[in-house]
């Protein structure tokens, strides 16, 4: 799957789970500091991303995914 498609799918999840505005999402945005996604919502985002992209995101990997770009790259290389 192309990175653009992964990013688009991730945006849908962030809108659904955390109420993020789609236009606010860029690759360099931090989930916590820029998009105000808290730790509880990050767990939901991860579970939905796992289902959507057929990827496993263990908790210790999730902790390293600080930005949208981190998540897109992780999914692209592990899906």
């Amino acid at each position, binding site marked *: 799957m192309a990175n653009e498609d992964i990013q688009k799918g991730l945006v849908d999840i962030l809108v659904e789970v955390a*109420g993020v505005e789609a236009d606010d999402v860029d690759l360099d945005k931090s989930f916590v500091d820029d998009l105000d996604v808290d730790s509880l*919502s990050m*767990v*939901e985002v991860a579970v939905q991303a796992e289902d959507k992209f057929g990827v496993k995101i263990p908790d210790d990997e999730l902790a390293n995914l600080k930005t949208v770009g981190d998540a897109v790259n992780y999914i692209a290389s592990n899906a």
Partner: protein
Amino acid sequence: MTSPEVVVTGLGATTPLGGDVASTWDALLAGRSGVGPINADWPERFDLPVRIAASLAVEPTDVLARVEARRWDRCEQVAVVAAREAWSDAGAPELDPERLGVVVGTGIGGASTLLAQDDLLETAGLRKVSPLTVPMLMPNGPAAWVGLELGSKGGVHAPVSACASGAEAIAWAYRMLAAGEVDVVVAGGAEAVITALPVAGFAQARTMSTRNDEPERASRPFDTGRDGFVLGEGAGMLVLERAEFAAARGAKVYGRLAGIGTSADAHHITGPEPTGEGAARAIRKAIRTAGLSPEDVGHVNAHATSTPVGDVAEAAAIRTAIGEHPVVTAPKSALGHMLGAAGAVEAIVTVLSLHHEVIPQTLNLEDLDPKVQLDVVADEPRKAGLTAAVNDSFGFGGHNVALAFTP
């Protein structure tokens, strides 16, 4: 503790009669019932003897942002809806967050979340269990979310005393203000458990009306034909503040929370003490802390849930603690029994009765139980200029709360 001057400066509610205070009040005076058939498949699926309830007039999901609604149990949703209205009604007072308290009670809390997430765990496994499960089911959730919403740093509390919880929250707020801890408290109750298991449990305890073919006539406090309560849902919130603080900011004042009284029956886990002595103790305390005499109390907004035993015990309590003179009404005839929200919504009704000098009627009172021996408003609202009114709330566990209000 000195007797503080506590005034009511804001009201908020969402109920089976309306999505706010004004529509609820208008519907009460118009004699409308909030009771109807339960719009779900589970009453039939489980062959429940109860098929009726007083469901919300306005779905909270229609007035909340989608993500807010997603993160909150229904009882938390209604708490925030009512709190926003109350806060705005009070003029959104500006104050030091450390001088703002929040006290919101619930009887059962996020039982719907607990049950739904347990189903998910059983059927889909751990991954599908929401990380929000615990904050959604915890009974302090409604208080916590209202506290976050308003930025309260003066103390956020959640009394849990079944159907007395909403009233107990108001009593707690009074004590916080009396102790000088804070200047303003948002206090109330929230409940939303019109779901299969709570209804099944109440039905098995034989406490609910089964008048399924006549929903609007099912809740009939003090009537000889009463056969149990009708479950309701909703929330009520009051902004209470120290009178000096309200005066200094030029706040509109609905009335005064003049006194509070609490007691316990020490009798039975669900049944009321039949002579009403436990309830009477709470009423006497409320009148005493208000500096009133029983003769001053011209109106009682009764707890009266439409159960055969409870209504008669409360009537006895009113007669022994106050006398036969107060004009009585029972809002659960229209609103159903909102459990932990009931005391707060009915406190709002009491305040508005004093403020507007009119007492809403008790619906379905066609044949007053001769054991009641009180003047219960039936058929239409009654105009009444009042010196003081008492609002009763009692809960499973033998919890009794009485609130005394003056105009």
